[in-house]
Each structure stands twice: as C-alpha cells, then as structure tokens.
C-alpha cells in the first residue's frame, strides 16, 4: 500500500465564471445579476479554502464478474456494471479523498440565514467546484506517478453516483487511515466537512480515462452533468 496526502495551495484552485454560470443555469440577463456576487466570491472565497487531498493505492484488487463486484483489500464493493466495466482491468485501485474544509460551507449558510440566498448559493457552488478542482490536481498527480511505471488511470468514481450506493462509503473509508484528510463520516455516510469527495480510481496498463458519460448515471445533482449540459 502506498499513501499520499497533499496540502494544496488555495491559489492553485482555478474556477471560471463560466463554470458557475453553467451550474446556475442562468440566462444572459441573470448573469448580470450574479456577476457582482461572483466577483465577491472570487475575491474572498479562496481565502476560506483549507484544501487537503490524497489517495491510498491498494494493490490487493480482485474482480467478480458475476456479482459485478470489485474487492479491494478483500472488501467487496458492489458497483454497477457501468463502473465495473471501467475498473475491471485495474491492477490497483487508488482510494481517494479530498476536502476544502468547513469555512466555505459555513459562509454560504450564514449568508442564506441572513436572507442573502443567492449570494450564499453561489458560495455553495464555488465550494463544490473548488473541491472538484482540487481533486483534479490530486488525480493529475496520481496520473503522473502511474505514468512513470507504465500504468494509466481511470476516471474517478464516487459512492452516490453512477448507481454506486452511497452506503458503501463506510467500507471505502475503512480502507483509509482514520481521519484521513480530516474527513469523518456520519452514520448516514455524509462526509464532514460537507465539501468533500471520495471514491475509487482504477490503475493499470489497460486503464484509461474517458469523457464523462452522463447517460449511464442517474444523478440529477452532479456538477459535471450541469457543466456538460449548460456549459
């Protein structure tokens, strides 16, 4: 097993106005309304980020084609066929987690409580995009690390998406050291801080990344779906 953890500089997180528009789904007229808020969030939001991300590379990986399961360190994960197809050739699995901390979420909710709903909502979107962006950097690091040994990496897959039951989050976190990246899990598998992500990335010489395929996922909340359809 191989464990990596990074503190990612806030300045390295790059979020564009267009990404926020895409998640909001706004018309040109509404863009004018939200620009002032976006400017403020860009100016002050980055200071609130406390980014930590990393992964554990598990080498004990088996697959069960009949049950569409992947066993990581002998722990079975029931993933749907769509994810199974992407991961089945994996020789190793990177179990990842990444968070931006609590401050952006708290700022968002404070604004909402003070009847600044739209401003708060934009902070919330900023937080979601920031954690994905930070994880992109962690994933790129993994990609470079694996390229050296002739392996490719898959897309990242998370419990709660693409039909993978979010309850499997508990098993996923059991693979990571306690308190990895400062993330804890509630009884209902909700990560704390809220703006955190976790999941699997497949590793192997036959593994490669693909364009996001929203048609195989029924999540209506996914950022990538919004970015793809409104971006």
């Amino acid at each position, binding site marked *: 097993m191989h464990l990596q953890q990074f503190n990612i500089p806030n300045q390295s997180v790059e979020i564009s106005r267009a990404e926020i528009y895409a998640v909001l789904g706004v018309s040109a007229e509404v863009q004018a*309304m939200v620009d002032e808020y976006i400017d403020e969030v860009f100016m002050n939001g980055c200071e609130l980020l406390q980014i930590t991300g990393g992964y554990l590379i598990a080498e004990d990986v088996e697959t069960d084609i009949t049950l569409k399961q992947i066993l990581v360190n002998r722990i079975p994960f029931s993933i749907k066929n769509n994810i199974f197809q992407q991961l089945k050739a994996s020789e190793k699995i990177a179990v990842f987690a990444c968070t931006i901390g609590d401050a952006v979420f708290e700022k968002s*909710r404070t604004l909402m409580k003070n009847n600044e709903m739209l401003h708060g909502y934009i902070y919330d979107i900023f937080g979601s995009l920031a954690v994905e962006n930070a994880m992109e950097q962690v994933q790129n690091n993994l990609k470079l690390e694996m390229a050296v040994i002739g392996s490719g990496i898959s897309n990242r897959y998370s419990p709660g998406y693409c039909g993978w039951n979010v*309850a499997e989050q508990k098993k996923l976190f059991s693979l990571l050291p306690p308190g990895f990246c400062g993330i804890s899990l509630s009884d209902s598998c909700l990560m704390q801080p809220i703006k955190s992500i976790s999941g699997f990335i497949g590793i192997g010489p036959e593994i490669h990344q693909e364009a996001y395929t929203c048609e195989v996922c029924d999540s209506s909340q996914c950022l990538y779906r919004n970015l793809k359809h409104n971006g």
Partner: protein
Amino acid sequence: MNEIVEKLTICIEFGKINQKSPFPPSMRGEVGADELTKQALEAGINPAEILEHGLIPGMNAVGLKFSQGKVFVPEMLMAAKAMSTALVHLKPYFQSGEVKRKGTFIIGTVFGDLHDIGKNLVAMTVEGAGWEVIDLGVDVKSETFLDTLGKYPNSAVGISALLTTTMANMESVVKNLKEKHPLTKILVGGAPLNAAFCNKIGADFYSRDPQGAVAYLNNLQNC
C-alpha cells in the same frame, strides 16, 4: 385591480427587491417590492389584498416558470427575497390577525442529512404562497417534528432528503408522526425520491418541485 398591487406582482415575479437593486436590468431605477408594499399600505389598500392579489400571484408565476424549466434557481431566490422584503411590511398585520395565513407548514431536512438548498426553496415558495412556514433546518429528528407539531397541531409537514441513505430515514419519521398525528398531511421531496417511495413509507404526497407542494397544500385548504 389597483395599479400598485399589479406592479407588486411583477416585482415579485421578476425579483425586483427595491429601487437600489439592479436586477432585473429592464427595471433598473424603478421602485421594487419594498417601496411598493409601503406605498400600498400608505394608500390604504387592505393588507390581505396586497398579499392575495399582489404577492402570491407573483410567487405563483415564478414558481410555475421554475417547474416548467423556464427559469432557474437564481430567479427563484431573487423572487423569494423580493417576497420576504415585502412580507416584512405585512408582519404586524399577520401578528394582529388582520391578515390570515392559509395555514402552517412545518419543514425540515430529515435527520442524518445536512442538505438544505432544495428545502429552502420549498420553504420560501410555500411562504410566498401565503402559508406560515416553520423551518426546522437540517438534520431534524422525529422528536423535533413531533414537538413542533404539538405546538401547531393543524399544520402540514414537509420532509426533505438528498441522499439515498438519508431518504430511508424518512420512513421512521413518517411512521412516528402518523402514529401520533394520523390526520397530519406529510409531503416529501428530494432528488432521489419518487411517488412510489412516498407511498411505500406512508407519506401523503411527493412533490418534485416547490410549486407542486404549493398546489397540494392549497388543495388541502380547499378540502
């Protein structure tokens, strides 16, 4: 219809909060919901008429457009803010009983779940439709719903969840509420839910959007 009240409807529908507010650009510099509500009261218009014929139709209009996919969350939030700005002026009349609410709606995100944007949208839209809304926040346990229902026994209850793991928690909440308050109508909503799940757990209505919740609640009032 009074011209001020008609303008008020437009301000709510398009999220024109006050004269300072730059949105929507087509109404820049014009007075908004804040000033018009004050003007209406000063002109002697009945506060109930302001609510019934000015504010509620505006929220209904934007809510309908939202459910049809013609506007998105930002427009809803601006409309709700315009509405709440106007309601500040009507608050004394609610307190004195001069303006009656349609009923009371208790809402919260089910225990184990901290997601609240969808729940907030429903709360604001229902309030904008003339209901008193008691928002219990997130991670709400059965006991909190029951305590609140004890204080407001004729209320309807709304329960929200965003995760497949937390939607399962709704079942025990609905069961506990129905045991003590069998006649209380319970609405459920959230991304992973559907009408079949609503029926399975014994809730009364599943709404996929805020306007659906408003329509159901308004129907209850007419029954």
